[in-house]
């Protein structure tokens, strides 16, 4: 018995020996929750501006950018000090944003203004605005730096922006109320989720031709409640994970065959999701149950639920 317990302790310790930190934006609390990825415990809560949603790391991973929509700016958190250091301009009502691989520019969706604002971080100013559809939301960037993609919720379109000329290259009609767009690690595919159609569409980056439409079914859950929101694509291009909102599930998809492999039961109204840097865990922000679920992707099990602030919305994992 003694030996068994010791062995169990050893296994658990070895198993959780990752040092990552998870940052969660709490939309109703105006805070960022900090989770220790080794202990899987809430370790800090950082006050930020009003209605924090989009959340990203700086290129050097020393700073956290948090879009605070009701304050019309992006707050900058110094991660060493664990507190707010200042802010950046963002245009009106910033929601989601991406950091371009050049490490210098943020592309920000301005939900109320039908614009994508391009922010030069060192110069701390908006260098240009790109006019898109109504209620821009999803923001993605191709890792090769060529394209920035955006979705507009009411217009139901995917907008492809040339990251060099900052001009619209294409507008593609997608499923109703598109929420998130992500470009695959090889910069060849754009994945777009449709909240109300409850599907994910995959497009070729170069031709914008559709490659697949992925639907989801959860036994016992009415189709209106199966909504596709957050997307995470793995670095090796083998898997995609999709948050299914009020269905309280995350779907795991074979990214080569576009087949849904399984779903994980997580907290309520799962919105955005984030992979650990080693790709072995997935963290989910569950808006209605105010917690974060931790999925161990190797054992294919939800291993922990961690209470955070009210209405967690977005999250990012720092190594």
């Amino acid at each position, binding site marked *: 018995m003694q030996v068994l317990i010791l062995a169990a302790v050893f296994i658990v310790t070895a198993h959780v020996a990752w040092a990552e930190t998870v940052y969660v934006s709490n939309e109703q609390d105006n805070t960022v929750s900090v989770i220790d990825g080794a202990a899987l415990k809430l370790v800090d809560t950082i006050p930020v501006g009003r209605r924090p949603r989009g959340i990203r790391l700086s290129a050097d991973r020393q700073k956290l950018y948090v879009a605070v929509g009701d304050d019309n700016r992006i707050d900058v958190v110094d991660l060493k000090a664990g507190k707010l250091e200042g802010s950046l301009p963002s245009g009106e009502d910033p929601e989601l944003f991406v950091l371009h691989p050049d490490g210098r520019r943020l592309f920000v969706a301005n939900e*109320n203004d039908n614009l994508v604002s391009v922010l030069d971080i060192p110069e701390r100013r908006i260098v240009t605005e790109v006019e898109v559809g*109504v209620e821009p939301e999803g923001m993605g960037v191709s890792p090769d730096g060529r394209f920035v993609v955006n979705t507009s919720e009411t*217009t*139901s*379109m995917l907008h492809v922006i040339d990251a060099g000329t900052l001009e619209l290259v294409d507008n593609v*009609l997608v499923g109703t*109320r598109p929420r998130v767009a992500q470009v695959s690690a090889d910069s060849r595919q754009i994945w777009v989720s449709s909240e*109300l159609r409850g599907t994910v569409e995959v497009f070729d980056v170069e031709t914008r031709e559709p490659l697949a439409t992925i639907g989801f079914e959860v036994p016992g859950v009415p*189709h*209106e409640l199966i909504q596709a929101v957050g997307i995470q694509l793995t670095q090796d291009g083998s898997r995609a994970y999709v948050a299914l909102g009020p269905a309280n599930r995350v779907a795991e998809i074979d990214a080569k065959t576009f087949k849904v492999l399984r779903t994980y039961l997580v907290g309520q109204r799962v919105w955005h999701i984030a992979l650990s840097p080693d790709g072995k865990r997935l963290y989910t922000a569950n808006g209605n149950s105010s917690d974060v679920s931790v999925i161990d992707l190797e054992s294919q099990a939800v291993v922990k639920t961690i209470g955070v602030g009210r209405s967690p919305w977005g999250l990012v994992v720092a190594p």
Partner: protein
Amino acid sequence: MRFSLVLLAMLMPAPVSAEERAITIAVVTQERDPVQPVSPLDREVKDQGLAGARLGTADNATTGRFIRQRFTLVDRVIPKDGNPAETIRVLAAEGIRFVVADLDAPALRAAASSEQARGMLFINVQTPDDALRNEACRANVLHTIPSRTMLADALAQYLMAKRWRRWFLVTGSQPGDKLLADAYRRAAKRFGAEIVAEKEWTFKPGHARTDTGHVTLQSEIPALTQVVDHDVLVVADEANEFGDFLPGRTARPRPVAGTQGLVTTAWSPVSEQWGATQLQARFEKLAGRRMGVVDYAAWAAVRSIGEAAIRSRSDDPFAIMSYLRSPDFVLAGFKGQGQSFRPWDGQMRQPILIAGPRLLVSVSPQAGYLHRGSELDTLGIDREESRCKF
């Protein structure tokens, strides 16, 4: 058929480029007596419905401009002594096939059953009459405004979730109030509540503005509400004649719900979840006032036509009409779930808000009311109960 479409195209008011396709929608309303708002905080609204349709057209145009579809709006008012069928005849002659009907039940029936109406689509944004969704239903009419039954079921689910089972029903003198009271009685039976007392409001409206207004009300309302104990006062006052006088004046300290107090409605300016903030902000910018329920229904009607045109990639009215009724159709209505039309009666299934005077209180369907198809169909007349035959 081909010939008549060509003819219609020739009759279009503005020339259309070969590339760009235009879809024209008419908002038809009735000349009405001005309504004095009950509360001094409310302002008289003159473009109710029309403003919502304008916002819907602007929203349609944003997608349309990317895929070369153009949406235009015209508005027509039926005079008090006017004939709805005549208005429809003129619209048909102009080649207009889509009508957003801000009409009462008799006018809507007259308009939709006229000879020229056969190839047109009417979307009802005004009248909650259940008869129009049942024995008087028509294949060329859809409804974005909820039926009375939907509103009553939505309230009943919420009151049962609160365990407020014993209702005191107060009904106004208008015909619609009686129909709404019927819907409340049906909902009470359906969801397990009990109507322990009923009264009719028989006082004349419009006392409140006089210097002695509050004194009169303070004696009238306790007398009216002196009934056996109950959990909640459920009020049926669609024309807003007296319901707002009730809260704070009842004999027993009980909440008021229904058409006033906790209001069951398809839309309220207090809604801000599910992106509603953006819709409210766009509306306020366009209309200079808050978005009401008829505005919302008209917005939903125009957006539905736009969504069907965009998704079917067509400006053919028949293609648009058939897409609207197909299982593929879904409207993002800023209430957290996709909204679509029930095939058995043309009613838009949608969540119903339970709105307080300043903030949203709840949204029905409530958790736990299950349905083999859509949980939204726990509100209103389900397929098996429907008396509609197209």
